[in-house]
């Protein structure tokens, strides 16, 4: 099975719009949304949820005030400044700061600290008009987004195998940190969506650095390219210098926003300029994925 991961570094460059369109063009791919803390792909693909599962990960410390003698050991050894002593000399855990390392519970001389498992969110298996989809929802403010991404990808792979699906389209999170690294694992090709701005170029450099670090082949698409043609040229030159192919440029097209408002992938509007470019990019990318197979 082949995994295409769509990333961007910078947010809002068009990852989800383009992944949603690929879902239409590819027909029967396993569709995966790895942007678990602000997932949007479902707004384009309208999945019908078939299964919902809990995502439980990590622990949070909680003090039993009756057992606590106020010795302060936990507060001293906590590296995350998550435990303070109240005026009544009772330890108090700040659950937002608690990393779940369990060190306080282990060293508490009075066994006054209990570790509670975190219910961090849900993951879903759904059906869409374009193929099955695995997606997730991290509860607002929860941790462990990287672990949820890994879980989503693992479940998607298992289901794809069961269903004899040979391609996985993965909408990635922004940035280059924990959830992005989790989504890169197992990818065969990374498509980076960038925009012709200085921020776009700066973030592209970092995300291509990440692809190189994890030795995954990458290619680039410049979205809304004619908003600054000079920057688009600079990005193309930069990619050339890095030996990273630019697989296409998508023009700024009002149909993209209109289709989004309608909750439809833009390629459903076949005649618009953006759709034509996205279709060309899809054929270039799917070719790269097949070539990858022959290597």
């Amino acid at each position, binding site marked *: 099975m082949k995994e295409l991961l769509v990333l961007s570094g910078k947010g809002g460059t068009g990852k989800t719009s383009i992944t949603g369109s690929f879902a239409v063009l590819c027909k029967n791919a396993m569709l995966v949304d790895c942007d678990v803390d602000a997932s949007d792909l479902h707004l384009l693909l309208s999945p019908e949820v078939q299964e919902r599962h809990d995502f439980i990960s990590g622990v949070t410390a909680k003090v039993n005030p009756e057992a606590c003698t106020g010795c302060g050991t936990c507060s001293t050894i906590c*590296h995350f400044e998550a435990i303070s002593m109240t005026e009544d000399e009772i330890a108090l855990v700040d659950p937002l700061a608690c*990393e779940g390392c*369990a060190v306080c519970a282990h060293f508490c001389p009075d066994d006054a600290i209990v570790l509670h498992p975190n219910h961090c969110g849900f993951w879903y298996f759904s059906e869409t008009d374009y193929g099955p989809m695995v997606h997730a929802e991290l509860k607002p*403010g929860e941790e462990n987004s990287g672990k949820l991404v890994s879980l989503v990808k693992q479940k998607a792979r298992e289901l794809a195998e069961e269903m004899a699906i040979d391609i996985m389209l993965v909408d990635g999170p922004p940035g280059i940190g924990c959830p992005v690294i989790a989504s890169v694992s197992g990818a065969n090709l990374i498509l980076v969506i960038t925009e012709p*701005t*200085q921020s776009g170029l700066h973030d592209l450099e970092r995300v291509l650095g990440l692809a190189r670090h994890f030795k995954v082949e990458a290619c680039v698409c410049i979205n809304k390219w004619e*908003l600054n043609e000079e920057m688009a040229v600079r990005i193309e030159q930069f990619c050339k210098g890095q030996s990273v192919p630019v697989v296409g440029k998508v023009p700024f097209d009002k149909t993209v926003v209109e289709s989004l408002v309608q909750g439809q992938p833009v390629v459903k509007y076949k005649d618009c300029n953006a759709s034509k470019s996205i279709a060309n990019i899809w054929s270039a990318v799917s070719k790269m994925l097949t070539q990858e197979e022959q290597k």
Partner: protein
Amino acid sequence: MARDEAGPSKANREKDMKIAVASGKGGTGKTTISVSLALASNKPVTFVDCDVEEPNAHIFLKPDISGSEEFYLTVPEVIEDRCNYCAKCRDLCQFNAITVFGHTIMAFPDMCHSCGGCFLVCDQKALKQGKRQIGKVEWGTSGHIKVFQAALRVGEAMASPLIKVVKKKAEEREIVIYDAPPGTSCPVINTVRDADYVLLVTEPTPFGLHDLKLAAAVMKELKLPFGVILNKAGIGFSKVNKWCEENDIPLHMEIEFDKDLASAYSRGIPIVEAVDGLKKQFADLLKELEK
């Protein structure tokens, strides 16, 4: 409603005002807004770029960098000949950063969260403190603005420790502005949690509204007062305005989508310098927030 929940942070307000600019969805204009606020202020400003994964504010503020510091986490290194393979460290570690099987022990420093538990639990003194580079913090000035920023090492997963470090480094001044990363998880929480007020930047699309709702839920959970700035107004739909109204969330400003603004942004020019009248709007917004 959101404003009534100001909570414990109000006490800080006399000495300084911390404003965090966050969004949920990426690319809505967090950096544009936070840079505009900093430039519009007539007071000394500390600007902290907390998007350590993709820091971009420097493109617009162009600070003269006067100092920098590499930042490391303390991670375990095994001194094999002292280890008796009791596996207490492995059993304590919640992050699978140490494994022991038979007479083999291995540390995986990339997995380590630096809780320090393994050093404490080892009776044999078989672990010494190694270090893992997380990223680099830099500081400098740009006119009346002191800029603090950090870049996560490419390949490093943990952004939150670096966010905490850059915030600690940042000097307290009358106005402190935090430019947050996108999303709603731990890096965002670590950025906004000590803010006096949070501005959520969004765009008038289904993605913008959906992610705004998530971000608003986080702010409510943290009991932080917040309001909304609608960027790229005029494209898409009007549901964001309606949602703010229905939920009693202040909509502080709408910035019309404009190709001149987009073009200035693309060249690294702050929008308050590209379009007349915008600087005053941001100065007024600052005054409104200080009340």
